[in-house]
């Protein structure tokens, strides 16, 4: 099993979710994140004092999948999340020893 982590732009979440579901993956975990990278932040001003906010809002997706799905899924996610602008995000893949479904105790392939 592998864990795919994708950092994407928040407003692309719906598109990525649809694409992943279409591909046949029925579960994932989503969380808020902030990104630091090439994509700049923005400036804020309060009573004349300027602040540079250098993190930008991102969404993190985590999908535990079978190893053989990884390559295709990377493609699916990247295609759906792409706007072509700086800051579209990263996807990385990590090896997973085992997965358990809490409710049933099922393992690995049966668990996702």
């Amino acid at each position, binding site marked *: 099993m592998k864990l795919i982590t994708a950092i994407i732009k928040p407003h692309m979440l719906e598109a990525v979710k649809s694409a992943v579901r279409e591909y046949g993956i029925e579960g994932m975990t989503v969380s808020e994140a902030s990104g630091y990278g090439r994509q700049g932040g923005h400036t804020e001003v309060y009573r004349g004092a300027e602040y540079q906010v250098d*993190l930008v809002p991102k969404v993190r997706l985590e999908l535990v999948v079978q190893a053989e799905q990884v390559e295709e899924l990377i493609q699916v996610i990247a295609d759906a999340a792409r706007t072509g602008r700086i800051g579209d995000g990263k996807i990385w893949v990590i090896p997973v020893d085992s997965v358990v479904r809490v409710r049933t105790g099922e393992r690995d392939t049966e668990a996702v």
Partner: protein
Amino acid sequence: MTGSFNPADTVWVLVSAGLVLLMTPGLALFYGGMVRAKSVLNMIMMSFFTMGIVTLLWVLYGYSMAFGTDVGLGLLGGFSDLGLRSAITSFVGAPGHEIPELAFVMFQLTFAIITAALLSGAIADRTRFRAWGVFVAIWATLVYFPIAHWAFAGDGWMIGRLHALDFAGGTAVEITSGASSLALALVLGPRLGWKRDPMRPHNLPLVLLGAGLLWFGWFGFNAGSALTATPLAATAMMNTQIATAMGALAWVATERVRDGHATTLGIASGAVAGAVAITPACGFVTPLGALLVGLVAGFVCSMAVGLKYRYGYDDSLDVVGVHMVGGLVGMILIGILATVLVNPGGADGLLAGGGLGQLWRQCVASAVTLAYAFGVTYLIARGVDRLVGFRLSPDDEMAGVDVVTHAESAYDFVGASGSIIATTHPLRGPIHPEEH
């Protein structure tokens, strides 16, 4: 239409009615901030719905039940003014202080609304909204309208016969709401996970905002109850301010000593406790008397809110500990502190040499109100529970009543730039950037 009326008194009552009306949204926020984020909307909804339904009943028959010609013994107003037909063109008030009757109808309506809305605090997080709707209509009819007649109508038994003193509703509003809340809390039972799970307020600035609006509105509640723009109104207002402030100080002093921390929830609670206690007393005691009323109320109520843990009733937002107990404090202290120097229409209490008579009358009025409100509310609540089902299913209660019942989420901060982790560093201040 241009009969004889006092325009200044009219302005004062209209303004006061507006102020008291604002108290219910204030209460909605005060309560709403205190519950968990998953049921704040339901909490607010119970108050706003009460503003709607009680207004409807008041127009149809409530005002008449409370202030229509007495049906006998000072127990209930008759059905002489259904639909407010005759109120449009008539006047009420002492000679020289007449005001348009609709001004009085409006003013008293706002009392009915907030008294009913107060009850929602006892049953936070776990109430089926439809049950609340049915309950509050029956409760206003069978509990509030009669008690309002007793306490506020000139021919009600409490004022007109017993001669208890209650300037602005220590009985009809405070004890009534508190005792009814106790009955409600007992019928509904505690929230899932009570005493075990964290149930801390989700938004304290909202609570303090609500407290601020309540404080403001209470001037209309108490000083407006003079129904005239006279020195008595000024005294009532001053006393309200003093007792509210002292309640706030006494509560935080108590918790500073007891718990080691003065809290904002405490100062807000103490202010309300002080205001509650001075409600019946504000037109009968001196400023120094009000000071004492506030101090006692702040201390006693800050202790009383712990009783629910001891006796196991989940009066979630402490309507009993603050309103019932605070109302009792105020009613009883009138019997001790009242003086005719402040209000010739009042009486002398124990300390002013009036003996125990007034104290006794205060106790009778309080006890009857408490017993009636508790008893009838208990029966109504049981009935509603049987017919409609008062509690949410455990699953719905866990999921949160906002989403389940109202199909809404209170907040959605996700994705706003302020909700991200943002290390920011000031670039420059105005005028002299180089100084940074």
